[in-house]
C-alpha cells in the first residue's frame, strides 16, 4: 500500500462527527481571503472556491517545497512533491477535520508521505545532483570549509532512510512539536524520537571532525 494513503486517512473524520465551520456560510464575494485563517480557506476550498485554495497554497508552498527537498534531496522532486501534496489536499479538502489538527500540519503530513514514497522509488541521488546552496562567506578559506561541510552533510543525509529524513524535515526544519510531527508521519511520539535520535546520531558521527 502506498505510504501516501495514510496521510489522508488519519485526519479524516466521519461526516456525522465533523463540525461545519461558520466560515463556509460567508458568501464568496464577501470573503477576505488574504486575512482568513487556513481552516476557513480550506473550508471554502472544499466548497469549490479555487481562489481560497490558491491563497492557501501560496502560504504553504515554500514549506512543502522544503519538506520535499529535505526528504528527496532534489529540487525537481521537491517541486513535484509540493504540487502533488496540494493537489491531493484540493481533492480531499472536504475530508479535513479541524478538530484533529492544524491545516499546516495536515499539508506537511501529505507532503512528507508523498516525498517518502518518491524517495523510496527513486535511485540514490548522485553527488552532482545535490542542491546548491548560497555561500554567504566572503573569505575563500571559510567558503571552502563551508562547501566541504556542506558536501559531507549532503552525503550523510543521503545515507539516512527516507523516514529519518522526514522526521528531521518536520521536527527540525518545520519546527513542529513532537506530537504534531509524529501525527504527521502516522507514528507514535516514541517512534519519532527514535528516528530523530538515529538521524542526528549518524549525522554527528559523519561530521565529527567538522562540527568541533
Amino acid at each position, binding site marked *: 500500500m502506498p505510504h501516501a494513503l495514510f496521510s489522508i486517512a488519519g485526519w*479524516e473524520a*466521519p*461526516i*456525522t*462527527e*465533523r463540525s461545519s465551520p461558520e466560515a463556509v456560510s460567508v458568501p464568496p464575494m464577501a470573503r477576505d481571503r488574504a486575512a482568513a485563517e487556513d481552516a476557513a480557506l480550506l473550508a471554502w*476550498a*472544499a466548497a*469549490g472556491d*479555487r481562489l481560497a*485554495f*490558491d491563497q492557501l*497554497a*501560496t502560504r504553504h*508552498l*515554500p514549506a512543502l*517545497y*522544503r519538506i520535499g*527537498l*529535505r526528504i528527496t534531496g532534489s*529540487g525537481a522532486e*521537491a*517541486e513535484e512533491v*509540493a*504540487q502533488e501534496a*496540494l*493537489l491531493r489536499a*484540493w*481533492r*480531499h*479538502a*472536504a*475530508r479535513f477535520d479541524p478538530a484533529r489538527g492544524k491545516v499546516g500540519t495536515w499539508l506537511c503530513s501529505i507532503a512528507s508521505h508523498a516525498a517518502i514514497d518518491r524517495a523510496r522509488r527513486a535511485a540514490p541521488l548522485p553527488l552532482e545532483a545535490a*542542491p546548491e*546552496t*548560497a555561500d554567504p562567506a566572503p573569505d575563500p578559506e571559510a567558503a571552502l570549509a*563551508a562547501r566541504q*561541510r*556542506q558536501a559531507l*552533510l*549532503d552525503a550523510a*543525509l543521503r545515507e539516512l532512510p527516507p523516514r529519518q529524513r522526514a522526521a*528531521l524535515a518536520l*521536527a*527540525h*526544519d518545520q519546527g513542529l512539536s*513532537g506530537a504534531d510531527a509524529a501525527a504527521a508521519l502516522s507514528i507514535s511520539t516514541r517512534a519519532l*524520537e527514535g528516528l*530523530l*535520535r538515529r538521524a*542526528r*546520531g549518524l*549525522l*554527528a558521527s559523519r*561530521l565529527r571532525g*567538522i*562540527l*568541533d
Partner: protein
Amino acid sequence: MRIETFARLLDTHGADPVCWPPASAAAARALLASSEEARALHRRALALASALDESLPGPDAETLARMRARLARAVAAAPLPEPPRAAPGGWLRPCAGWLRPLWPAGCGALVTLALCLLWLNLAPAPTAQPWLGAPPLLAMLELPE
C-alpha cells in the same frame, strides 16, 4: 543527569532548550552549567543544527512563481473536491459504540472456542472398548442354562 542521558537528549530533541521535555530540562540545564563535557556536546549539537539550517534553501522567486502557475492550472483542470464520505456503519455505529467495552470478553470467548476446536481436532479418536461392544453385552445377557 548523566552525560550519556544528556547526549541522548540532544540527539532526540535537538540543541534548543525550548524543545527539551519539561521533565528533564531543568536537570539538563544544570548539567550544562556545571560540565565542560556537556557544553562541548551542546556546541556540537548547535553546530549540527546550524549546518542543517544552512543546507536547506527555500525556493527562489522564479521557482515559486513556476510552482504557483503549475498548481493553479492543475487545480483549474481538476474536478471539485470530493464530498465527505458518510460515516461507516450507518445506524450500526451506536450499537458498535455500546458494544465496544465488551470486546475483550468477546475476544476471550473466541480464543477459547478456537482452542476447544483445536483440542477436539488434535485429540486421539476414542478406541473401541472390547467390553462395551454388542457381542459381549449380549453374551452377558444370556442366561446360563
